[in-house]
C-alpha cells in the first residue's frame, strides 16, 4: 500500500550524464555524517537532548517524527547552519562545531540543501537560481549554462529557465530547489520535508528524483519528512538506471537500498533501525505514530 503511488509512476525522467556512471563500490567504513551526543538549546529550552547518529557513505537516513521534534534542526546542524550547544557534529571527518563561519562557508559547498519551501531567490530567474553556486565559484559562463540546463533537464524543468519563481507552482519550485542543490554535484544531500504541502503526484515525482540521485549518483543523504509513504517509498524502491525507471528493491538487484529510519521524540532518538523493524515494532508509541502518520 505504501508504495502504491510509486508504482503508478510518471514517464521516466531524462537521464543525467552522470547516470551512466555506475556507482563506485563503498571503500570506506567511515561515516560521512556523525552526531555524538549533540545537544541544541535555544531561549525557550533544550530542543535536542543528546542525539547520536551516523550516516554511512551512500546511505539515506530518514528522519521522521511529530512536528517540532527537531528534524529540521538536525539537518541544519549537519549543514553547519547551526552549531550544537554541546557534543560534536562531524561531516566528512571535519568537526563543524570547531570551524569558523568562514571555514564553514567553504565547507558547505560539499553539501546540497533542499529547504522545505524551496527558498529560491525570488528576485532571480530559475536559471540564475540554479546557476548561483556555480557563479559564486567562478565557473566559466558557458560551462555554467550547460550545467544549469543539464540539472533543469534532470528535474524536467528546462523550459522554465527564464521564469521567476513566483511564476512556478509549489511542486515546480521544489524541483528547482533540488536542481539548485545539485548544480555543483555535492556528495551529500539534505532534504527538509521536500514533499510537504504537495499533491501525491508531485510528491511522487520528487521522491523519484531523490531515488535517482541516491541510486545512480551514489549521493549520501538525510531526509526529514512527516509523510511515511515517502519514507517507505525510499526504503522499498530503487531507481534502475539502465531501465530508467523505479523498481521494487528486491534481492535480485542487490537487496534493500541502505535506508534507515530515525524516529524523534522529545529531543531524543526514540527509534533507529530498518523500515521493517519500525513497521513490525510492538512499541505503543511507534504503533500509534505509524497509524497517525498514515492518516
Amino acid at each position, binding site marked *: 500500500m505504501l508504495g502504491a503511488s510509486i508504482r503508478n509512476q510518471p514517464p521516466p525522467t531524462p537521464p543525467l550524464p552522470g547516470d551512466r556512471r555506475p556507482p563506485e563500490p563503498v571503500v570506506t567504513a567511515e561515516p560521512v555524517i556523525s552526531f555524538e551526543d549533540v545537544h541544541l538549546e535555544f531561549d525557550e529550552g533544550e530542543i535536542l537532548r543528546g542525539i547520536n547518529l551516523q550516516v554511512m557513505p551512500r546511505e539515506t537516513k530518514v528522519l521522521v517524527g511529530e512536528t517540532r521534534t527537531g528534524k529540521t534542526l538536525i539537518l541544519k546542524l549537519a549543514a553547519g547552519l547551526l552549531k550544537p550547544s554541546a557534543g560534536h557534529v562531524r561531516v566528512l571527518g571535519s568537526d563543524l562545531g570547531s570551524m569558523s*563561519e*568562514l571555514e564553514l*562557508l567553504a565547507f558547505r559547498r560539499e553539501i546540497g540543501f533542499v529547504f522545505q*519551501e524551496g527558498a529560491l531567490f525570488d528576485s532571480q530567474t530559475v536559471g540564475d537560481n540554479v546557476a548561483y553556486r556555480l557563479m559564486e565559484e567562478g565557473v566559466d559562463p558557458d560551462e555554467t549554462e550547460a550545467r544549469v540546463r543539464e540539472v533543469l533537464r534532470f528535474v524536467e524543468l528546462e523550459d522554465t529557465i527564464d521564469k521567476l519563481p513566483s511564476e512556478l507552482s509549489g511542486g515546480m519550485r521544489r524541483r528547482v530547489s533540488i536542481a539548485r542543490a545539485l548544480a555543483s554535484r555535492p556528495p551529500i544531500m539534505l532534504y527538509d520535508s521536500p514533499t510537504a504541502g504537495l499533491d501525491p503526484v508531485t510528491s511522487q515525482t520528487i521522491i523519484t528524483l531523490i531515488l535517482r540521485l541516491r541510486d545512480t549518483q551514489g549521493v549520501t543523504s538525510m531526509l526529514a519528512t512527516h509523510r511515511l509513504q515517502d519514507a517507505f517509498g525510499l526504503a522499498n524502491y530503487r531507481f534502475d538506471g539502465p531501465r530508467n525507471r523505479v523498481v521494487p528493491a528486491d534481492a535480485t538487484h542487490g537487496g534493500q537500498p541502505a535506508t534507515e529510519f530515525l524516529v524523534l521524540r522529545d529531543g531524543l532518538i526514540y527509534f533507529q533501525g530498518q523500515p521493517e523493524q519500525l513497521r513490525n515494532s510492538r512499541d505503543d508509541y511507534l504503533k500509534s505514530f505509524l497509524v497517525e502518520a498514515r492518516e
Partner: protein
Amino acid sequence: MASTDRDLIPAPEPSALSFVVEGIKDRLLAVQDYTLLCCRALACAFTPPIYVPDTLEQSDIIGVGSLPIVLLTGFFIGMVMVVQTAAQFVRFGETSLTGDVVSLALVRELGPAITGLLVAGRNASGMASELGSMVVTEQVDAMRAMGTDPMRKLVAPRVTATVLMMPLLVAMFDLVGLIGGFLISYFTLRIGAVEFWTRAFNALQLSDVAQGMAKPFFFGFVVATVGCYQGLTVRGGTQGVGRATTQAVVVASVLILVSDFFLTKVALFLAGGKAF
C-alpha cells in the same frame, strides 16, 4: 509523592524587576549584535571578495532612486526657509542676509539631516523589509548553505552604496535648496542673482562645507546598518517583517538626529576650538 507535589506547584510569576532586568539584557545584547554587524560590514567592505555588481545595483536603487524626493524636498525647504526668515529680516531692513542664512543652514545642518531622514524613510525601511523577507523565507539560510556569506553579499554592498551615495544626495539637496531659496528671494524680496549667490558663497567657509559633507558618510552608514540589522534579525514571519520595517525607520531617524548633535559639536570644536 514529593515529585507529584512539586509538579502541582505553579511556577512563580516573573517579578517586575525580572522584566526590567530581562529588558535591559535584551537591549544590551541588541547593541552588541548591532556593533558586531557594523564591524563585520566594515571588514567585508574592504576585503575581497567584493560584490561590485551588487554594490552598483544598490547605488542605483539608493542614489538614483532617492534623487526625486531629495530634490523635491530640498527645493521646498530652500523656499520655505526664505519665506520664514524674510519676515524677520524685513523688520530690520537686512534682507540681503537671506543668502547667508539659507546657505549656512542648508550646507551645515539641514542638508545632511533632512537628506539622512529622507533616505532612512525610503531605504532603511526597504532594506529591512527586503532582508526580513529573505530571512523568513529561508533565502538567507539558503545563501549560507551554498557557501555565500550574507554579510558580504547582502550587507556590505548596501553599506558601501549608502555611504557613497549620501554625500552626493546631500550636495544635490543643498544645490536645489539654494536655487529654491534664490527664486523666492528674487520674486518676493527683489534680491538680485549676483547679490544672493555672492553672499551665499561668501558666507561659507571650508569648515562649513567639510562639516556638511562629512556628516552624510556617517548618516549613510547608520541608515544602511540599521536597515540591515533590523532585516536580518526579523522574528515572527510577515508580521515580524512589518515590525522590523517600522523599527528600522524609527531607530535610524533617531540615531541620525542624536548623532547629528554630537557630530556638530565635534565639527565646531575642530573648526574653531570651541563647541559653542
